């Protein structure tokens, strides 16, 4: 019988050679002196420019701390080891775990009617009395049936418009029908409203079904009213009164607000944040205009270069950090989405920054006309007669919709691990893919990254946040607080 001798120590050659193998990693120059190296696990190292070349070409690296970091962050591995791969594989699995919850956000566009005429509105709104722009009850029934067939056990049913509270009877019917048919899903309800339509009946209904309210606040009065026009009076006055009314009745944490940055907004980063603070909010989502639909009809008010938005974002963000450093918790939500990806193995629920893209994979939209769209932006394109992402009619059934040519086109272009310009981009783990955006802006759902506004905006913000993370412990602690808070 042959006796196999087990070695207790690594062979002698191990200690004479550079002694490591490369694991899959990506890199980019983060500033003029440093490069960012990101391993397959999503862990990163900041190192002096030239470090990657030295590692790849096996040149000696005298910086022991850097070598330890490269090992610890799964960027290189001992020549004779194969351990550690299971850990990275698990991290990859966790990062993609949201795929098991396919299409968990279901957006119901109950009506296109609205009492506002916002110049940047991404959807084509109609005046309040045209009920032909409401979702038909038969179509709503089909849509609810589709939603309940979704594999996800946790569902968010979101009502949008127009102004969904102008179709309150339909909204009530939708919630109650859903609950009567649901057998095994946990369902959250959200109403996206402009915050100017409310009464006791609406409040009672929201309380009964634990409904969340999401509204719009663009900043101080002059700015909000310039962006968001009511036919008569001030939208700002009405929405602030509405926010207070909903808060008093439902609880402070049951209402949130979103801002949209018009060209005018870019001049007032601090004023916008102050308006949020003054109105009792502890967070803000600094959001550029989506370049679709009605927004294109007023280019002077709504068009700006990505770089202009980035300058606005940075000014606002620095101001937010100062507020936090003085002891007041105030979070920027887009940064929190990215920081969660950088600092934890988990993904955020935010559908516009995912790979595979959030369109279809995380969201489905049931439009007022009875058609199903891949995302909110997809239905905005349809208002310009571009039906590239219209998956079919609500009566077509789940399987047919999700295997339609339009759906396959989304899937094909939705994985940034396989898109040129993304596949070897160091920050792709912290970013996402957006075939709808690239189709709308570049005429090609695949997209061309060097000229993509999506890429420019996200890469710049991600690089900026990584630099901030390295800047000081106090900023890092603020970031951890943001991603830990609800």
């Amino acid at each position, binding site marked *: 019988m042959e006796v196999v001798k087990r070695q207790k120590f690594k062979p002698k050659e191990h200690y004479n050679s550079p002694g490591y*193998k*490369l*694991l*899959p*990693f*990506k*890199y980019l120059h983060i500033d003029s002196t440093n490069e960012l190296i990101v391993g*397959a696990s999503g862990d990163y190292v900041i190192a002096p420019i030239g470090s*990657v*070349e030295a590692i*790849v070409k096996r040149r000696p690296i005298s910086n022991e701390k850097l070598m330890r970091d490269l090992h610890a962050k799964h960027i290189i591995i001992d020549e004779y080891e*194969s351990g550690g*791969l*299971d850990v*990275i*594989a*698990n991290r*990859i*699995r966790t990062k*993609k775990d949201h795929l098991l919850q396919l299409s968990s956000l279901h957006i119901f566009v109950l009506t296109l009617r609205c009492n506002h005429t916002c110049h940047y509105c991404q959807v084509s709104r109609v005046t309040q009395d045209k009920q032909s722009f409401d979702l038909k009850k038969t179509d709503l029934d089909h849509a609810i049936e589709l939603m309940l067939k979704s594999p996800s056990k946790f569902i968010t049913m979101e009502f949008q418009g127009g102004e969904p509270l102008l179709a309150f009877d339909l909204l009530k019917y939708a919630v109650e029908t859903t609950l009567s048919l649901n057998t095994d899903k946990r369902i959250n309800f959200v109403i996206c409203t402009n915050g100017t339509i409310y009464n006791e009946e609406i409040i009672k209904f929201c309380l009964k079904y634990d409904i969340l309210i999401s509204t719009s606040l663009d900043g101080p009065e002059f700015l909000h009213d310039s962006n968001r026009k009511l036919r008569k009076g001030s939208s700002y006055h009405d929405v602030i009164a509405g926010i207070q009314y909903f808060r008093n009745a439902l609880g402070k944490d049951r209402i949130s607000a979103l801002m949209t940055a018009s060209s005018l907004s870019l001049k007032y980063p601090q004023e916008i944040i102050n308006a949020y603070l003054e109105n009792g909010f502890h967070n803000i989502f600094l959001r550029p205009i989506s370049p679709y639909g009605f927004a294109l009809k007023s280019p002077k008010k709504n068009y700006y270069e990505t770089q202009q938005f980035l300058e606005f974002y940075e000014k606002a963000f620095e101001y937010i950090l100062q507020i936090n450093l003085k002891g007041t918790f105030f979070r920027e939500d887009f940064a929190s989405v990215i920081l969660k990806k950088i600092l934890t193995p988990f993904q955020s629920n935010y559908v516009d920054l995912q790979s595979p893209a959030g369109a279809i994979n995380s969201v489905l939209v049931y439009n007022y006309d009875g058609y199903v769209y891949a995302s909110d932006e997809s239905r905005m394109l349809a208002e310009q007669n571009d039906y590239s992402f219209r998956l079919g009619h609500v009566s077509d059934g789940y399987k047919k919709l999700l295997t339609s040519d339009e759906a396959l086109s989304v899937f094909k272009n939705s994985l940034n691990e396989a898109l*040129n*310009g993304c596949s*070897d981009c160091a920050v792709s783990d912290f970013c996402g893919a957006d075939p709808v955006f690239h189709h709308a802006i570049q005429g090609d759902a*695949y997209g*061309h*990254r*060097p*000229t993509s506004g999506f890429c420019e905006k996200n890469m710049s913000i991600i690089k900026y946040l990584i630099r901030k993370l390295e800047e000081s412990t106090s900023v890092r602690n603020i970031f951890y607080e943001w991603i830990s808070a609800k």
Partner: protein
Amino acid sequence: MRIIDFDKQAYKKQSVLKAIYSLSNIYSLKLEITDDRYCVFLESASIKENIISELKIAITTRVNDFELRYHIAAETKEVKLLLLAKALSSGGIYDDLADEIWK
């Protein structure tokens, strides 16, 4: 034969030449320069569209890193596949695949 055509106005000559030099390590190719265009002739007709797209991106943005990135990708290709197999693995076929790649 596959031809990739570049507009001289859109791309700097130095960038095109560097990228083509990098690519020549991977594919057999030749370059012809006319008054207004660079034409790259690739002997393999089956070259994938994504390689061409990659080349164009390399020329536009980050030609200096092009070769190094390909080197990393080539050296870590098997581990990447193994990781993918492991990440997908919940027993059964993917475990076999992982073993096969690691051999």
